[in-house]
Each structure stands twice: as C-alpha cells, then as structure tokens.
C-alpha cells in the first residue's frame, strides 16, 4: 500500500555518450534502451526496465525522481492526496514513457518533479530464476546490485518534509535541527531502510546526489579502487555517516552530478522513534570519522 521504494532517477546530461560510457564502464550499469535524447540504464539485480534515465540537455540537473507504488490504485489515492494539498497532478498515459505504463507527475514543495508509477516493464535481473549463482560475473566497474536513495535540496526543509510525510506517507527516521529547532535536513523512508529520500537546505529543485546500494564495507573499498583507477573525482570517503550509520563514498560523474555508493544502515519499523541531530554535531551527523563537513559537499549540487 502506498509508495514502495525509489523507482528511477532521471538526470539531464550535456554529453550523452560520455555519461553513458561512465555509467556503464565505471559504475557498471546495463543499457536497456536508447532513444533520440535518452539512455535508459539499470543495475544487474534490478528487474524493472530502468533505474536511471540520462536525458540530453544543455545543463545538468534532476529531470525527475520516480517512486514505485505497491498497487495500481495507489496512484489515484495519492493523486487525490496531492490534489487536496493544492498541487496540480499530471496523468501520464501508457505509451508516453519508455519502459512503463500509466504514471502521475507533480511538482513538490521542494521544487522537484516527482513521478509515481506502478506498471513497470519487467526486463529481469542478470541471474536466471532457476538454480542461480548468488552473484554475477563479468559486469565491469563497481557493479552495484541496485539503486538505493536520493538526496534533494529545498529552501524550506520543514515544509517539504511535511508534504512528503503527511501527503505521501514517508516516515522521518532522522532529522538535523538548527539552533532554533528548525529542520535543515531530514531523512525519510518507505522501504524500512534508513532513507529512500532525504532533503537538505539549498535551492528548490536541486539534486545533491543519488546513491547505489553495495553489499558491505569491503565492496565500498573496492568501489574506491575502481573510482581512483578510472580517474573519477572523489568528493568524500570511504567513510561513515552518523545519520543512517551507512558507509559511503561520494564522487562525481564526468558531467558534475554527484553519485554515492552506500551500504549499512538499519531496519526501522513504522513506529521507529525519529533520531535528532543538533547543528553543533552536524559534522559527525554527515561524516562520522571526519567530524566536519567540506565546503564542496555543502555547496555543490546540480
């Protein structure tokens, strides 16, 4: 019932070939489909048509974030809820989007375009469904099994968070409060993970990063080797977050969009008590080992 998990992230890129080469050879995603202006990619363990769409445009940024809902009729329930909140909702018919059926789209109070979809074309994972090996071989690069979450920026984090929780049913696992008790960062989940969507203070409509799941800390170390070998600019890490407890590396794709690989965390129930971070602990909240933020991490988003 309701939103299940992150479905796909659509980002604009100024060089489609360069971006595709990076996401296939360094990240290790698989190209599922191409059309005139887009490339659709997925990770090896993902069954759905795509988890990343690269769209050619003259500047980089977030085109939309799509979340998957559990049942088809969740779409109309959530459409009504968003309408009641006073935001117009657009219905996208089957056949209008590649790899998926009907969906709804709307602008969120944090300025991103959000899509909700249930009917997604299944292309299958890379493992057989009969007597499968527990892993794949021969996928180049980091080869994460799946997409995990994204972090967006918003001018009014508190207001945006209220929308995501009260209208869309997200649950806040952790929050970062400034000295006046205002939310300057929130981490929210639907999939019983520490976060599927997070918001930090910044311009409306911004994308801070999107993240791929890795199995463990050892995989994070291997990912750092792969990134350095390929000359990828690492932003921070490998390190650990205080918020979410996850282990992480931040890095940039060749066009400037921030990526993350992430593992760890915990399993919150719906009645999980929200964890609060105070601004004087912001360093440890974000980078537990360093205990402080770097300027680039705070300022750069797309």
């Amino acid at each position, binding site marked *: *019932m309701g939103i299940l998990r992150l479905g796909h992230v659509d980002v604009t890129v100024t060089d489609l070939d360069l971006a595709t080469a990076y996401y296939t050879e360094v990240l290790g995603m698989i190209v599922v489909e191409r059309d005139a202006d887009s490339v659709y990619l997925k990770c090896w363990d993902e*069954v759905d048509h795509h988890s990343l769409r690269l769209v050619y445009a003259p500047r980089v940024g977030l085109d939309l974030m799509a979340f998957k809902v559990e049942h088809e009729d969740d779409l109309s329930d959530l459409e009504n809820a968003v309408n009641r909140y006073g935001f117009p909702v657009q219905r996208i018919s089957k056949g209008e989007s590649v790899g998926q059926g009907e969906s709804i789209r709307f602008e969120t109070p944090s300025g991103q375009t959000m899509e909700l979809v249930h009917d997604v074309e299944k292309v299958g994972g890379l493992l057989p469904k*009969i*007597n499968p090996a527990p892993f794949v071989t021969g996928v180049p690069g980091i080869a994460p099994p*799946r997409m995990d979450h994204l972090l967006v920026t918003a001018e009014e984090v508190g207001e945006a968070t209220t929308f995501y929780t009260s209208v869309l049913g997200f649950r806040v696992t952790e929050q970062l409060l400034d000295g006046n008790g205002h939310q300057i960062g929130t981490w929210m989940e639907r999939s019983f993970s520490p976060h599927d969507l997070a918001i930090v203070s910044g311009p409306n409509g911004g994308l801070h990063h999107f993240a791929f799941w890795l199995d463990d800390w050892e995989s994070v170390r291997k990912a750092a080797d792969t990134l350095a070998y390929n000359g990828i600019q690492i932003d921070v890490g490998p390190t650990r977050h*205080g918020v979410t407890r996850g282990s992480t590396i931040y890095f940039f794709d060749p066009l400037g969009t921030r990526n993350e690989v992430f593992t760890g965390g915990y*399993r919150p129930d719906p009645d999980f*008590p929200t*964890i609060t971070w105070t601004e004087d602990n912001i360093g440890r909240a974000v980078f537990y080992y360093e205990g402080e933020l770097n300027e680039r991490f705070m300022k750069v988003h797309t």
Partner: protein
Amino acid sequence: MSILRLSHVEVRVPDLELATAYYCEVVGLIETARESERVFLKGWDEHQHHSVVLTWEPTHGLNHFGFKVTELEDLDLYAARLKEAGVDVVRYGPDEWAPGHGEAIRFTLPSGHSMELVHGMQQVGNLLPLTNPPPKPLGLPGIAPPRIDHIFLTAEDVGGMTDFFVDVLGFRVTEQVVGDDGFRIATWLEVSHASHDIALVTGSNGGLHHFAWAVEDWTALRDAADVCAYHGVRIETNPTRHGATRGHCLYFFDPVGNRNEVFTGGYWVDPDNEPTIWTEAEMGRALFWYDGVVNQKFLTVHT
C-alpha cells in the same frame, strides 16, 4: 495494514541459567526481564521489549514464534481470516502473556507450530541515544547482533504449509527447492522485502530447524565464528554462503541443543517478485553454495 516482520521466538531450555549465560555472554543479547521460569532478551539495536524468550522446560525446541503487525486492528483482521480457514485463535490482552509483550493472537499452524501475531510490544529503546547517536555501541560482549532476522521450521507438508502462509497470512515466496516429483522440499518466504523472514524444510511437524540474527557483513560473521570457537560453542557450519537467499551464514548450537544462525546479505524483493526455483539436483548448492552437497546432518538434526 499487514504483517511486518519476525518479532520474537520462545524456545524451551532445560537449564535456564546456562542458556541465559550463553545468550547474554556468547550471543550478546541483553536481558530485559526475568521471571522464575522465563528470561526475556533482545538484540542491542531492537527497540522492542524482547525478541528471544527462554522458557524453562525439561526439553529443548520451539514453544512459539511471533510476527509483528503494523496496526492493532490487524489482529482482528487476521483472526477473522484464520477462523475462516478453520484455525482456532486465542487472544491475549495487553501484556497478558508476558511483561511488555503487548496484545497478540496465538494459533496452531497446520504443521503443529504455535504462531503468534503481536502488536504494541513495549518499546524500551535500543542501546543508543535518540540525539546525536554514535553508529553503534562499544564494549558489548559476544557476537552482539543488532537484531533477530528469520526463523526456519520443519514441516511434513512443506507445499501445504507454504500455501497456508501465502493464502491466509499474505507471505510471498522468494525461493523454493522443487523435487523431481514436483513437490516442494523447501521454501523461503518474506513479508519484509528481505530474501526471507521464514523458511520451511521437509521434516517433522512442529520442529525448529534454527532461528537467526542479522549481522552487518562477512567480517562480522568471521568475528562471530571467533567468538563461538573461543567460548567452546559447537559450530556446525563454518562461515559459508547460501545459494538460496544469497546470504552468508554461520550455524552453531546453543548449550541445550537449539540451532542458531548469524546471517548477512540477501537482497531486496518487490511484492511482485517471481520466485527462484532450485531443482532437486542442485539442492546442495541451494543450501550451501560453496560445498554444493546436501549436508545430511544439517537436514536431519532439528529440535
């Protein structure tokens, strides 16, 4: 709304002091309450009052296991469904069965296992503060797993039991071993989008094969094996890997003979996931991917 995840297991132990010492000092669970014949324990990251209950009885084995439901009304909803399926349901009021236990319905599965659905267990908090917490507590004794993960039962009619879990309780099959005759030898089912919350293998009705805690990664499994060996705990299977669920695992026995596991890995599953099928010829790899042979002791010893 639905069944959420495995909540707790109640196991019989003929020596309560010995078992408590093992589960606290070797496994590293935390004691939250004690009665003359019962001890209540939880993992360090669990907020709920208990996830393991040790009950003194002259034998070992499983008394009952419980799954957590999201809403209190779910208890009525599932009670009605169970009655419709011809299953008698006993209702426990708040904390009636045990301290901090919340409300529950208890029923006997067609396989003879006693199962419970529970809501509103007392929240006692994990071992970390809710403001500016470190990512983990330090200095815990033993393996110190953060939480309980899944339970594995034996049943004579695995196929029938699997259908019961799917049709009546809304579980979803992730993997199954199908015999050459078409019968299901073992099945793995989930409600929490994990690779499994419960699994069934052909064996005696009412049997407990093992229950498992989650640990962080393969390194934590290695550390768990070190802890077991140091304390002279009987390790049944060294750190290895499952084909089914893809998880990494370590099996060992508590001092009174109940099998324990620590588990890590697996995968996320959507509700419309198509189950993976293992053929009888590949059953060895389904259970232990590295060895690839069916371990008869693993299949025949249970409590």
